[in-house]
């Protein structure tokens, strides 16, 4: 047991998620869009399609192709980030696409493509899981058939403690980081990555903690989506 009393950099409890808010339908030109704020994170996602997909040789006769672009704007981090897509962004785009695709019923739209654009306006740790959460909302608002929503959360090890929803400092100074995405109703994991060192027992604990966080976020996603429809039910403008 560590002797010093454990405290997280932003004073949260080990099982506490940063303040979270979501908004549906922020981009009029998109078929579906959403915005999320999780602590210092501020991310926007927009979905277009299904539409004609290019290049044509990549088109499948069996299902729609999903394209995903995760991008951080130059002012999203303290030091200017080059706007050109980096190796890290390419990788994250790929893992987000693979985390979301199992939830979509793509067989209904053969020979077409679905584009997901994710812009990180402000970053403060755990942007990949936050991006998955907001992209799932945008896909649901676009009216695409889905088996389930996708909810994601990261767990980590900071000062020998397993913590949920890893922040910026915990990510940089922590010992491990474990982003998890799942389809909460189907109980299926669609993303599991690990960076750092965890013992076997710690890994189990971190996984439980991350899944718990994702389930909490799933409840809030459901609320956000229901709220968007509820607004259409009253004539009073809000």
């Amino acid at each position, binding site marked *: 047991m560590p002797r010093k009393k454990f405290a997280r950099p932003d004073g949260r409890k080990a099982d506490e998620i940063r303040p979270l808010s979501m908004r549906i339908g922020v981009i009029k030109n998109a078929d579906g869009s959403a915005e999320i704020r999780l602590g210092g994170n501020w991310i926007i996602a927009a979905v277009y399609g299904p539409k004609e997909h290019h290049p044509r040789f990549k088109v499948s006769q069996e299902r729609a192709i999903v394209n995903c672009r995760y991008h951080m704007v130059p002012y999203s981090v303290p030091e200017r980030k080059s706007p050109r897509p980096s190796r890290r962004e390419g990788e994250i785009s790929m893992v987000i696409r693979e985390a979301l695709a199992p939830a979509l019923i793509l067989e209904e739209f053969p020979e077409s493509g679905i584009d997901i654009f994710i812009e990180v306006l402000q970053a403060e740790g755990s942007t990949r899981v936050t991006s998955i959460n907001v992209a799932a909302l945008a896909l649901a608002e676009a009216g695409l058939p889905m088996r389930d929503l996708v909810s994601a959360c990261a767990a980590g090890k900071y000062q020998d403690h397993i913590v949920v929803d890893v922040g910026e400092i915990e990510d940089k100074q922590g010992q491990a980081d474990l982003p998890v995405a799942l389809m909460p109703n189907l109980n299926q994991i669609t993303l599991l990555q690990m960076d750092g060192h965890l013992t076997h027992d710690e890994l189990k604990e971190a996984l439980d903690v991350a899944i718990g966080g994702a389930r909490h976020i799933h409840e809030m996603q459901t609320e956000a989506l229901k709220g968007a*429809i509820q607004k259409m039910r009253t004539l009073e403008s809000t």
Partner: protein
Amino acid sequence: MPMRSIVVPGSVVDEKGYSGDNTVKAERGIVSTRLGVSAFHGRKVSVIPHSGPYKPRKGDFVLGVVVGYKRNGWDVDLGTASKAFLPASEAGIGRRFDPRRDELNKILRIGDVISAKIIQASRLRYPLLTMKERNLHKITDGVFRKVTVAKIPRIIGKKGSMLKVLKDSGFIQEILVGQNGVIGIIRPKESYDKVEAALDLIVEKTYARGLTEGVAEILKA
């Protein structure tokens, strides 16, 4: 009978019953695959979607734009993933299309807006169109806007009640509603922006009670 409620993808609509539109049967019960409102017809459980892409169906009245020529017809954009095809024989020129005499671009040119009907549609093939009916023709004067397909029934209203309110406002000569989500406001008068505002209201407050009255109020103001 269970109450209508808002459902999200993956949520259980009802524990028992048959799976209708936009639902799948699972161990947990009938599960929604779309964001929308649940609906019950007898034992059939379905979901009325909040939004979504247009799926062409046989017999649908649609508005589209001519975007290309093929050797025996035109490519028409309906806003779907694949372009629709209008064969020259279905262009409704009043006689047989004769490729030795007739030229495609004398009948329809790229950029023309047409009203048409779908005569064939399947999951894998592009939809086929026809204009061989009395109310199907090239549209020369109008303003167009796109809405989500899921809003079309509300824009038409029960037995066309909403359309009647919009038409009777006197700001427009006619309003065409394509099942593919394209709305054509035909021969608008100068102050037709009230009709646009009314359409905005329908799109924003789709599920509100007393929407028809709200629309009538906007048109009167």
